[in-house]
């Protein structure tokens, strides 16, 4: 027996930004990607941003499907190229809020070079990386974040390459905002996403997310729920921790929190300053189009 309620299904806050006609989505039972979308929907709602000016860019992968399910101006680009696509968009139309929402393989494997250069430039992108420690969509291969000794379809005897510590990579390359949570931390995720939407510059959020189908089962971490409970148990809140200390090992502790939140002129700030100074009147007319609202 449930309480008598007349509220419609459509009043679910996520529906405001969801292409509902495409549901059910392709994600497996217990996959964490959908959970992050709820957090993103709440962050957008609270941000009071004009959604006509918010764009979401994804690459390829299970995580890359997010763009296709969002009822925003969303772009499903080629593998690894979400950041260059987003870069062009932001520079051509600085008034847009540009969110890059993709997987670890997409963003820091094939797309790693774009990632470090966008951070170096401090381009105003909000980069959300779903880290499930594997290439989910293609069958659970080892990727740039797979922890040492983890099993994958391409490391049947255990991975022996060290994986990236993504917060450290982002900070070292120049990001002005760096945070990490797991899919267990839903309220924190919504809060952090809200902060990123307001931040000027390259902001990065790593979300540790369960891929029960291809990573969890192979590594005896159980189903999605067991992985969520594991994240809850293993997470250690470490706001402001030096990022070089927050690498993740298989079954080890997961440092979570906001690690970096600093100010540094963004790509567009510096571009406007430099071109305004050198081109003077010639550039003055363009400046108004190149200043974010």
């Amino acid at each position, binding site marked *: 027996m449930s*309480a008598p309620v007349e509220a*419609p299904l459509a*009043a679910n*806050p996520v529906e405001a930004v969801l292409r509902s006609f495409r549901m059910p989505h392709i*994600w*497996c039972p*217990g996959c964490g990607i959908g959970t992050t979308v709820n957090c993103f929907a709440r962050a957008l709602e609270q941000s009071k941003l004009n959604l006509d000016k918010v764009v979401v860019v994804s690459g390829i992968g299970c995580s890359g499907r997010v763009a296709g399910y969002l009822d925003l101006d969303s772009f499903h680009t080629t593998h690894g190229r979400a950041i260059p696509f987003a870069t062009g968009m932001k520079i051509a139309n600085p008034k847009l809020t540009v969110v890059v929402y993709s997987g670890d393989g997409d963003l820091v494997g094939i797309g790693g070079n774009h990632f470090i250069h966008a951070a170096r430039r401090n381009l105003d992108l909000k980069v959300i990386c779903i880290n499930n420690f594997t290439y989910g969509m293609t069958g659970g291969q080892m990727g740039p974040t797979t922890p040492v000794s983890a099993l994958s379809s391409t490391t049947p005897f255990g991975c022996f390459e060290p994986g990236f510590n993504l917060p450290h990579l982002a900070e070292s390359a120049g990001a002005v905002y760096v945070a990490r949570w797991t899919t267990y931390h839903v309220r924190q995720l919504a809060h952090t996403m809200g902060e990123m939407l307001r931040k000027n510059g390259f902001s990065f959020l790593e979300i540790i997310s369960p891929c029960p189908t291809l990573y969890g089962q192979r590594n005896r971490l159980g189903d999605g729920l067991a992985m*969520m409970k594991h994240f809850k148990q293993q997470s250690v809140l470490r706001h402001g921790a030096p990022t070089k200390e927050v690498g993740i090992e298989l079954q080890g502790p997961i440092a979570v929190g906001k690690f970096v939140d600093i100010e540094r002129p963004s790509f567009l700030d510096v571009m406007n300053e430099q071109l305004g100074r050198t081109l003077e009147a010639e550039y003055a007319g363009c400046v108004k189009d190149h200043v974010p609202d």
Partner: protein
Amino acid sequence: MPEEAPPEAKKTKKVRGTVVINLARCKGCGFCIAFCPPQVLEFAEDYNPQGYHPPRLTDPDGCTGCDLCGLYCPDFAIYGIMLKNGAPPSAAREKSDES
């Protein structure tokens, strides 16, 4: 002397929140059930069209409408709302299209 609220008002006040469930979308992951703070959800016995057991409220009076289930559900199949005196906020009141 402080006035006692009439017994009916007390009773309706107890219902603080509830959930709206899209039964067909659920994939039975159990996130909503495991992480509901007052533990008022459980798997229903019935199957949905996809072959999963969706959640159901065990104790309607216990739900606070905190919407944590709505934040967790990876399939956008449930969300919580706060109730005022047992009724959903008027903006949200429309005909239910629950399937």
